[in-house]
């Protein structure tokens, strides 16, 4: 037994002590959690080596592609630290058909300021989306730039250009980058009251055990593909604050909303807290090889199709 203890005690006995930085970082996270009293969260790292996702959720998650602009750094570490007790991971859950009184996260509160850049009737709203796909080891990298020119009358023809090619008339769904892309007349009919919007969205998947994930994906589609205006983003963020298991983080400038779809897939929306505009999205596959699809958005108002906003 003595020999056993000696040998076992010698294994990796020379590990370094916890760094002061790690100590303070962990302490800060704990202090934040005790102050916020938010819903349970478990770190994404705890999910990386679990079994694969369910086919249902995989189908929803796999359909989602990400888009972006800015060409900045890829936010490999931007996915917030997350939810669910480690011993019994559950990600999908049902949702009540009517919006509960109490919010489950701070999305609505943090995203209270929502606006779009003023646009004259004959002007076009410009949205650029740059998508970068890369693996953790860096072997693969794809980059796509898609630009959109959206008329003031959103029912009118949208124009787009991909990777500097020719400008073409397109509907949002023709370059679908989301699980579900609604036609503009459907978007126009969505309720602007948060309670009614919540009810309308949950009615799309009644009694689904993954209702929270489907809700999140649908909201993401509205933001990513339909590029919904401020008047719809306001109730959408309020409705999202009643969706279970969305992780919300706020750094004062941006608010991130993260949903874990299963052991291997998470998605994050980064939204500007100044105007509630979607800044970026990311989808991470935590398996092997770890893959990150990151997209960023840039906005403007221009006078003609093909123009880019001056900076």
């Amino acid at each position, binding site marked *: 037994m003595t020999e056993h203890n000696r040998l076992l005690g010698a294994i990796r006995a020379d590990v370094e002590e916890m760094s002061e930085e790690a100590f303070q970082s*962990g302490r800060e996270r704990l202090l934040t959690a005790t102050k916020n009293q938010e819903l349970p969260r478990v770190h994404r*790292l705890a999910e990386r080596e679990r079994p694969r996702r369910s086919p249902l959720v995989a189908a929803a998650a796999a359909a989602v592609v990400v888009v972006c602009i800015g060409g900045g750094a890829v936010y490999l570490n931007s996915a917030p630290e997350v939810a669910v007790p480690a011993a019994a991971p559950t990600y999908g859950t049902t949702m009540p058909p009517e919006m509960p009184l109490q919010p489950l996260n701070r999305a609505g509160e943090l995203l209270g300021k929502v606006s779009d850049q003023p646009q004259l009737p004959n002007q076009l709203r410009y949205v650029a989306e740059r998508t970068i796909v890369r693996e953790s080891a860096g072997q693969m990298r794809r980059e796509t730039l898609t630009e959109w020119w959206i008329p003031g009358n959103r029912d009118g023809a949208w124009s787009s250009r991909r990777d500097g090619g020719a400008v073409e008339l397109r509907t949002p769904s023709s370059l679908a980058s989301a699980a579900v892309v609604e036609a503009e007349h459907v978007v126009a009919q969505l309720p602007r009251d948060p309670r009614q919007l919540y009810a309308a969205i949950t009615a799309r998947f009644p009694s689904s055990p993954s209702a929270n994930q489907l809700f999140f994906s649908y909201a993401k589609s509205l933001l990513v593909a339909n590029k919904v205006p401020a008047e719809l983003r306001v109730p959408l963020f309020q409705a999202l604050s009643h969706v279970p298991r969305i992780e919300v983080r706020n750094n004062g400038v941006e608010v991130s909303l993260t949903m874990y779809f299963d052991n291997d897939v998470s998605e994050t929306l980064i939204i500007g807290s100044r105007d509630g505009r979607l800044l970026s999205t990311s989808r991470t596959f935590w398996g092997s090889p770890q893959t990150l699809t990151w997209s960023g958005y840039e906005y403007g108002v221009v006078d003609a199709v093909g123009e880019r906003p001056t900076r």
Partner: protein
Amino acid sequence: MQTESVLDHGPGEHPDLTEPGGDAVIVALYDAHSRALHRYLARRVGQDLADDLVAEAFLVMWERRGDYDPRRASARAWLFGIATNLARMHERTEVRKLRAWGRELGRGLDVEPPDARAAAAVDAENDVGRYAEALAGLRQEERDVLLLTAWADLSPAEIAKVLDLHVTTVRTRLYRARGRLLKRGKP
């Protein structure tokens, strides 16, 4: 006042985290145990993961404070149980690291040791290397109870409570794990 009590006397072994002032208690627990927990986790899954898992274990502890029964186990034992559950998600990393470390130690020297003392040191390193590789070959649940005993100083009774096992099961796993290690770890 609870906070003064915590600051003056530490969090205690069996605090009630659901009482007013529980937030101060858990921060005091962090101050008291995070470094030891980090060492335990770093030995198992490596330094980088340990940084995250320590923070995570305390967040889980806080979020599940209503589940903690101070009469069943000390807060420290409960914390190491939570951390062990979290580390379990990284079994492949742990096994890979143990094997790599074991191979490195067991590789020996390319040249003949200069004297008997050096030769003995090399032999000792080889023994530890073999033991590390044998540890990697254990079943996860055996390795958990073994390392909670050896590296976290928990008793079988404490392990049983925090991992929700019968104490006989813990003792059986320990017995088997030691037996396998001694058998596989021999030169």
